[in-house]
């Protein structure tokens, strides 16, 4: 096929990061007017590919052709000029500015005297938003809006740019059911206008509802491209994972021991917010040798719940937390650490990793006191302990003195888990531990968690992927907008039931 036949033609694109190949020699043709779904597991390279097309990533090997012309975007502006807009999973808005100001950011309308033409921008913004079924005032600050409305503002921005190609990166991950339905109507309307859509997702139902063609990525490689009609969800899922999902013998029943953590009527205030409570009346217990999963949409309060248990929340939680039979009230993570609670946070790069430090220093950070010899840190003792962790968890690195940034995401995550295991915790909190980790490393993490659990550790984990919770957890607690809407045992839990509980409040609203 000539580059001219396709709207976008990707030829042999490779993107390397230190320690990991995010994209390996990917070639893909996107036809004008189609909706192509890009599917793959976390870390498969979907977002990397889209960021290259949108000019966010500017350094890569290989070529991209748009309308037959070779294009090497040096910024999102270049891509926008070529008619490509991207809606990131984590939205890209200036929270303090109004909806209208965000839509026209960088291309503000002006009066003849050169001043901002607020009236014109508000008018145009209002008509764009109306077209998107979004009933918000253009003058409202973005920070006051719900995630679903914020997303529509990004789409309005793309429309105002007259984008012909719209890239959407997992757009439904934070939406309620009614918002998803509205988004799908918007997508249908965009397509009627001739907009080409690249839709990134790993949710099969969405993909099969929307897509004309489906491209499957795995471990940075393009596995195959299908017409929707010539395939089915099973086949696609199978290719995404690359093998029969290994039933890592985590399914064999574990024997939970005595209760190690008991949470009663936990509430977390949310000052200055209409909902008043970030978390409201949460009660559950955790036994030794048990994995408790916490499910919920983005913004449901999963991370906040773990932070409360770790003494890391901004506001003081109310209610009662009992750890190993004693009531605890942590004011600072240091107290939680000493009491035997460990938290591996969700955003590894921002909240977990010390990127200026070596692998050894990252591992020993919380327990460096054990390496003191006459009051001074002994590098030998430190390396020795770090090497033990590296061996125990199977971290792949040539030396513990390597910079932590030279390791792949999965190995970095293991190093952080290792850091916390050294503190000998009784309860391990894992906030979306497999985010951004490739498939192989995921399976290893699952085995590790199972193994730790069998050694008597109590684990609470969250995940944005339901299948993960379903394979790993003994029980699953479902949160919706800060409330506990259901608790399922492993036997009862299904994706359907969990999704219903996770969107329970939206469902109530729709019924009314």
């Amino acid at each position: 096929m000539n580059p001219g036949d396709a709207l976008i033609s990707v030829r042999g694109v490779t993107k390397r990061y230190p320690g990991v190949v995010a994209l390996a020699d990917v070639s893909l043709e996107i036809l004008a007017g189609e909706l192509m779904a890009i599917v793959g597991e976390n870390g498969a390279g979907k977002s990397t590919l889209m960021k290259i097309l949108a000019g966010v990533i500017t350094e890569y090997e290989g070529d991209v052709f748009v309308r037959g012309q070779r294009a090497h975007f040096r910024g999102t502006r270049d891509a926008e000029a070529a008619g490509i807009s991207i809606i990131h999973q984590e939205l890209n808005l200036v929270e303090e500015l109004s909806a209208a100001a965000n839509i026209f950011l960088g291309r503000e309308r002006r009066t003849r005297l050169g001043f901002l033409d607020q009236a014109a921008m508000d008018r145009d913004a209002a008509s764009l938003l109306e077209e998107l079924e979004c009933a918000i005032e253009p003058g409202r600050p973005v920070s006051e809006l719900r995630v679903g409305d914020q997303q529509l503002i990004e789409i309005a921005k793309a429309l105002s740019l007259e984008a012909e190609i719209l890239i959407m990166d997992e757009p439904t991950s934070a939406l309620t059911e009614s918002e998803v339905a509205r988004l799908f109507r918007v997508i249908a309307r965009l397509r009627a206008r001739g907009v080409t859509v690249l839709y990134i997702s790993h949710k099969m139902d969405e993909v099969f509802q929307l897509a004309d063609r489906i491209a499957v990525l795995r471990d940075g490689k393009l596995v195959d491209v299908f017409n929707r009609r010539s395939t089915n969800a099973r086949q696609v899922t199978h290719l995404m994972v690359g093998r029969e999902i290994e039933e890592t013998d985590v399914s064999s029943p574990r024997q939970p021991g005595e209760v190690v953590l008991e949470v009663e009527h936990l509430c977390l205030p949310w000052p200055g917010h209409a909902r008043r409570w970030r978390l409201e009346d949460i009660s559950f217990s955790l036994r030794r040798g048990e994995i408790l999963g916490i499910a919920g949409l983005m913004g449901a309060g999963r991370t906040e719940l773990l932070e409360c248990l770790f003494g890391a929340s901004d506001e003081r939680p109310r209610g009662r937390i009992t750890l190993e039979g004693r009531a605890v009230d942590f004011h600072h993570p240091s107290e939680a650490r000493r009491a035997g609670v460990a938290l591996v946070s969700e955003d590894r790069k921002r909240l977990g990793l010390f990127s200026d430090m070596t692998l050894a220093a990252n591992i020993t950070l919380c327990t460096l006191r054990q390496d003191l010899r006459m009051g001074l840190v002994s590098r030998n003792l430190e390396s020795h302990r770090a090497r033990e962790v590296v061996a125990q968890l199977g971290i792949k690195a040539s030396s513990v003195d390597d910079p932590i940034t030279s390791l792949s995401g999965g190995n970095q995550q293991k190093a952080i888990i290792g850091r916390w295991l050294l503190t000998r915790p009784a309860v391990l909190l894992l906030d979306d531990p497999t985010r951004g980790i490739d498939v192989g490393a995921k399976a290893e993490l699952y085995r590790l968690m199972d193994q730790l659990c069998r050694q008597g550790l109590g684990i609470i984990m969250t995940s944005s992927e339901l299948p993960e919770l379903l394979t790993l957890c003994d029980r699953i607690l479902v949160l919706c907008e800060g409330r506990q809407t259901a608790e399922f045992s492993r036997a009862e839990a299904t994706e359907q039931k969990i999704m219903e509980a996770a969107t329970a409040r939206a469902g109530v609203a729709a019924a009314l």
Partner: protein
Amino acid sequence: MKASPDSAGLLGRLARGHSNELGLLLAIVAVAGLTTILSDAYREKPLQNAEEILRQTSLLGVFALGAAIVIISGGIDLSAGSVIAFSGSVCASIILALAPVDESGNAITSDLGVGVFAIAIAATLVVGFLIGTLHAWLITVVGLPPFVATLASLVGLRSLARVYVQEVTAALTTTGKTTQIYVNDEAFSRLGTEWWIPLCIFLALSLAAWLLMSRTVVGRHLYAMGGNEAAARLSGIRTDHLKWLAYCISAMSASVAGILYTAEVGTANPQVQGRGYELNAIAAAVVGGCSLQGGVGLISGTMLGVLFLRVVIDAVAKSVKVGADDYEGIIVGLLVVLAVAFNELRQARRGSRKQFFPGALGLVAIGILSLGAGMLATIMAGRGAGSAVLAGTLVLLGAIALVERRRAGDRDAGARLS
């Protein structure tokens, strides 16, 4: 078989981990060597010159260590210059208050006992601790950015010191209000003038700082906090306590410097003492490899950074001969820009060529740089040299800009053609 790669690895690691220090060491030798060739001063009195450079290095180094520790921990302390002035005033005023009085009611500040100085120095260090604590409170509890908190004391403390000295002199001397306090004791003045005393103090403090930063848990946590404060807190590190420590170290090291500078000139003169020194200290730390983003930097690098700064300043002083002090600011400014730009370039990935003079901004920058160079050359070597340098810089930078533009143009054209 096993030993040789290991030892090569050790050497290699040493070179890799300390490339910045090695570079500085080479630069110091180069500058000193060049000055020896260009000026007679080093050849005629090598020992005297070396002692003077070491003495100046030590005085600056004492509080540059404090600045480096704050910077590594992810903060910034702009107050050092005023803390020096304030501490000097406090130290001198206590000496004045404890000194015996002659029959006409004037304090005799010569031949004082060790006890007087011990009390004065201890009290001054306590003042440093209090200033550091105030900074930590403003930053961790009130929530001010470190820049604002320490900027406020940069402005406020000097003014406070001036008022304080006037009040003290009005109360304790017969001459009434003055703006300075004199200390005539010879032993005290040796603290700042005898070259090896500040040097020993500097080396002792450096050793302590090195032990703290590279061999203790607290030091490791300071690096961690500087590199990623949120992650440090979530690792159970008491970041508020660490900041308290860092700002106290910084303020107390400035207090030590304040005592030494007061001893050097035998006067506490808060109007001029230590003015602008905070930037010299920050510059030394940055030249020594500390990143203003925090989390990166070494005590050894900072020590060499201070030495390099003083060697260059001295080299310029020796070659210009008159008004050398006036050049200090220019040198410090240039060195900081060069050191940081050099680090950026080294870290920038190969393949991505940086364009230094893009667009209109680049054209104006070429003009500014050429004018600056021409102006400096005119002042140092006369009008003829000035014009030559101006024209030369203009042509050179213009050529660089042309090449850059052509290369960028090629890339665009290449993208369009294929």
